[in-house]
């Protein structure tokens, strides 16, 4: 659509290439195996991980991403899997219910405990309602529920949404972009006009309209997929521009001459050779998806109460900002730290996969 607008985005890494690493002449006198090891050492996952480890900010990002994902996984098992298994009578007679894990260790993230003061401040700090206690390190919300526990269980929604949306966008975009870029011509024209049209409706406006149309104001599953679908155009453009260059490579021509079918060429050669920028962009998009869905929950679109989610906590905390400021600080910090983690990791991944882009 544009001359300048979308093709030369330096942040996307769309023009990444690593062809210069293997200079001509360096393979002389080496065995096939040595050559393969050399390539593996320069391109493989082990190399990438090594690069990441040497980059302290990327390593910090990886640690944050890992920790939050782990916490979210535990919360997910507790909130969803226990519920799911109980449906099938796995725990019949044992009295196990949703949030059993949390309850066993501490307290349920959704129950409103009798006798707990509401809107308690964090430990050691005071507000209108007195001093916080060790039992509720970050304080309590407007219903006396523990804020730390609600944050822990809110991570489930954030991480789930982030990953699902990014994966939907990546898969959808890769398919559309690869087909469009490889076939070119008419197919490309039609697909790209469609992608452009979707791209011309501002992101949040499109998400809001789709969610409203699908009647999914409180359906998180649909919201995750909608956010993912809205990412499709971006990934489609990214992979399409890579495919255009890969398509002209000698090995693709060779495969075609050898009679390999087009879908197989796309699958075996074109996609693997175009995937690097998609992975980097995907990691960064997990972060933006978390931000988007937090915004949606803030506006009242998302999980049903009492299920904890960071965006919903922030939206409720608006009414209590004078009584307890901390209630509105913690969920925002949780979002901030998580998204910083994904951004650092994504940037580090880009540098590791493509050192030429490093500044």
């Amino acid at each position: 659509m544009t001359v300048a607008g979308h093709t030369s985005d330096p942040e996307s890494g769309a023009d990444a290439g690593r062809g210069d690493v293997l200079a001509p002449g360096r393979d002389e006198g080496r065995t096939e195996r040595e050559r393969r090891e050399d390539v593996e050492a320069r391109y493989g996952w082990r190399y990438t991980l090594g690069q990441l480890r040497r980059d302290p900010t990327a390593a910090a990002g990886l640690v944050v991403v890992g920790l939050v994902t782990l916490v979210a996984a535990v919360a997910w098992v507790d909130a969803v899997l226990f519920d799911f298994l109980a449906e099938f009578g796995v725990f019949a007679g044992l009295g196990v219910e949703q949030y059993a894990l949390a309850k066993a260790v501490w307290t349920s993230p959704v129950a409103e405990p009798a006798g707990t003061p509401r809107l308690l401040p964090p430990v050691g700090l005071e507000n209108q309602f007195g001093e916080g206690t060790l039992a509720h390190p970050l304080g309590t919300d407007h219903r006396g529920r523990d804020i730390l526990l609600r944050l822990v269980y809110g991570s489930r929604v954030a991480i789930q949404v982030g990953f699902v949306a990014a994966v939907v966008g990546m898969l959808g975009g890769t398919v559309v972009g690869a087909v469009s870029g490889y076939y070119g011509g008419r197919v490309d024209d039609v697909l790209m006009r469609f992608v452009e049209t979707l791209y011309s409706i501002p992101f949040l406006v499109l998400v809001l309209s789709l969610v409203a149309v699908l009647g999914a104001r409180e359906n998180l599953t649909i919201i995750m997929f909608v956010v993912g679908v809205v990412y499709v155009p971006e990934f489609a453009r990214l992979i399409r521009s890579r495919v255009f260059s890969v398509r002209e490579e000698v090995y693709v021509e060779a495969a075609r001459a050898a009679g390999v079918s087009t879908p197989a060429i796309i699958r075996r050669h074109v996609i693997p050779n175009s995937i690097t920028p998609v992975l980097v962009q995907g990691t960064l998009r997990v972060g933006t998806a978390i931000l988007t869905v937090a915004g949606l929950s803030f506006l009242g679109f998302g999980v049903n109460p009492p299920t904890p989610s960071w965006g919903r906590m922030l939206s409720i905390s608006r009414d209590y900002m004078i009584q307890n400021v901390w209630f509105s600080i913690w969920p925002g910090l949780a979002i901030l730290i998580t998204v910083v983690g994904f951004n650092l990791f994504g940037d580090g991944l880009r540098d590791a996969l493509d050192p030429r882009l490093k500044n």
Partner: protein
Amino acid sequence: MGIARYTLWRLVQAVPVLLGVVTITFLLANAIPGDPVQTMLGPSPSQAEVASIRAKYGLDQPLWQRYVNYLLDIARGDLGRSIYYETPVTTKIAERFPKTMLLMLSSYLFAIVVAVPLGVISAKRRNEPTDHAARVVSLIGVSTPSFWIGLMLILIFVFKLGLFPSTNLVLPWADPADVTGASTRIDVLGTALHHLALPVVALGTLQMAAITRIERSEMLDVLSQDYVTLARAYGVRERTILRKHAFRNAQLPVITIIGLQLASAIGGAILIEAVFSINGMGTLILTAIYNLDYPLIMGTTLVFSLFFLVGVILTDITYAYVDPRVSYGSKEV
């Protein structure tokens, strides 16, 4: 092809995209599951009432007929009547649009004014404390939800310090008679800026951070070019290099990122309007969605998209104007 023809060409190119957007919004709005008539009339309306409302809004016609009518109406500048407000959609949008426009343009102004010097300084003092600080600021800026920044600003500057008002905007060109506590045009301007400050910082931070990042990396890129090394070897002063050789050449990607950020700025504006209770386009589309007011949903979506499209085209034209290397006739590769 000259710049005028290029502009014309970009506008012509936008027509099919706009038609696509109209089609998508029409299909979206007409797939709404809840019956809007039901929403309007309450739980048990009479048959006659339902029929008359259906006829009034043309809901008794087949889908294609409604689509053709919708296209004809848009061509005449008519976006239908809002079911919720019972006024023409265009009236409602005309009433709300200036505030959103004011909010967004001011945020961009804030973002550019802060980000460009920050990026340049960051690149010039690479790996020094100033650079680290700038990078941390921009990282946090791109990772923080704008609505939370808004909440925190309200917390500090409204509740704790009492320095700013927390709600709505005042248009700087409003009549002094309509603004409380203002008697002259200068007063109105002051009140407008006072109201604008917090929402602009909340909305502009993301843009500011994104522009800082790109400005820094572009400056670094340009500063490592051969012609800069050559200029240094000739003994050109560092300040001159920075201003004449590096800065100009680093601005092109910055223009691009400004255009690319427009979509997220529009999304941010919707959230910020909700946080600061600004009655602009953002709160209008939310009202439309909460009340299943489909003519209003279609109208607001369309206007937002048009706004976005115009922004992207303006960015492209600016880019082409600034960069003589862009051949105007070339298609996307």
